[in-house]
């Protein structure tokens, strides 16, 4: 039976891991390789690194740390940040990343997803979606969320984009529910369950983890394949071994 994945997310800015609240006000949490090793030792199933300012700054991800991480880490990791072309993706994958995740650049040019899937196979291609509920009750996509000054509200509905991204070749979807992010009141179960219904590839929940129960709820109620979290792990509020024992006790398949 496939285990549900626990995925610490490391937001990278200027070579350090940072964390903000609701995507703003970033605080330095530590060194990339140190944190990667710590999470690997604690039993993280996978790591995601977001070079959060790459896209707003119009550059690709910095590959030097990708290679450093690949040398020391023996669990899979995904890298995101301003990847705009097959060549940039290839460089990151050859540096040792297992998957690349595209978000804003895929919204700039939809064909990017098709090209990446054709070049590397869908299993390497993750599409990250930043989503927020608008005043009319619709979930819509946000772009360039790494920089609040540059964040764009798109007319595109989140679930429509999710369907299209899969059709174009997304092998996995990470849904960042921005309304829940950083406030530790639980994942956005309603939005994630709606996403699950249209998502036929692995779906990763992001935004809102604060308590052990939040992870149980998102796996059982929204049936996601993985749960991504940052601040609860960085701060030590939740230790991964404790979380996994709790989840196994709750009947959720995990790797111990």
């Amino acid at each position: 039976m496939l285990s549900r994945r626990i995925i610490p997310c490391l937001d990278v800015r200027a070579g350090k891991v940072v964390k903000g609240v609701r995507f703003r006000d970033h605080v330095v949490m530590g060194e990339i390789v140190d944190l990667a090793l710590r999470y690997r030792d604690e039993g993280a199933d996978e790591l995601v690194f977001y070079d959060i300012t790459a896209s707003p700054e119009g550059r690709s991800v910095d590959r030097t740390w990708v290679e450093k991480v690949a040398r020391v880490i023996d669990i899979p990791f995904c890298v995101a940040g301003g990847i705009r072309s097959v060549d940039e993706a290839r460089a990151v994958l050859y540096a040792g990343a297992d998957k690349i995740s595209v978000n804003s650049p895929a919204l700039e040019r939809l064909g990017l997803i098709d090209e990446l899937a054709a070049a590397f196979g869908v299993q390497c291609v993750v599409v990250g979606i930043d989503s927020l509920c608008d005043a009319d009750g619709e979930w819509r996509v946000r772009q360039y969320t790494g920089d609040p000054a540059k964040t764009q509200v798109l007319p595109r509905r989140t679930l429509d984009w999710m369907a299209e991204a899969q059709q174009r070749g997304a092998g996995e979807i990470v849904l960042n529910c921005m309304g829940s992010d950083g406030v530790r009141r639980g994942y956005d179960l309603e939005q994630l369950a709606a996403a699950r219904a249209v998502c036929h590839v692995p779906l990763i929940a992001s935004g809102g983890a604060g308590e052990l129960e939040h992870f149980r709820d998102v796996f059982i109620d929204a049936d996601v394949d993985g749960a991504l979290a940052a601040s609860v792990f960085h701060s030590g509020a939740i230790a991964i071994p404790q979380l996994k024992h709790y989840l196994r006790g709750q009947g959720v398949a995990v790797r111990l």
Partner: protein
Amino acid sequence: MSVVLVDAGGTNIGSVRYALQRLGVDAALTADAATIRAADKVILPGVGAAGPGMARLRELDLVELLRSLNQPVLGVCLGMQLLCAHSEEGNTECLGLIPVPVRRFAETPGLRVPHMGWNRLSAKQAHPLLAGLGDDEQAYFVHSYAVSVSDWTLATSDYGEAFSAVIARDNYYGMQFHPERSAAVGAKLLKNFLEL
């Protein structure tokens, strides 16, 4: 001991190489027939699709060479599938070293494809490649096609159905999961291969 990684263009070559370095082995990355033939161990990594994978081996003129090796050869992920007879992916004739088919996971409600993540390994036969493998050990898989269970299956995993996680025939071995990304379990099985 000389270990070579066949440079067939897979994006996981760097990761496999680093995993071997963590075990103290510096593997050469090569597509040179003489170097491959002279190696003590040969690893065929691979991420991507079966059709382009075989096309690349033909382009490099490595098909007959890979079929005629006598030292232990390990195929990883797509590399394992290429050792088999035929893949449904792009209706591709593979190397035919292990006479089993490679099939796409059946469409099943609630079963997401690709099969991506950690899944349990169940040993079916005692074999030095599986030395030290416990009852509750998981490895990291990423694939949409799987090798059917056969007499050459050493270990299975389950995703809707049982499929081959580890296979062996004569000097040819395959791991469907990524040992280079499967933490201590992966390191143990890679080390077992190096010690065959």
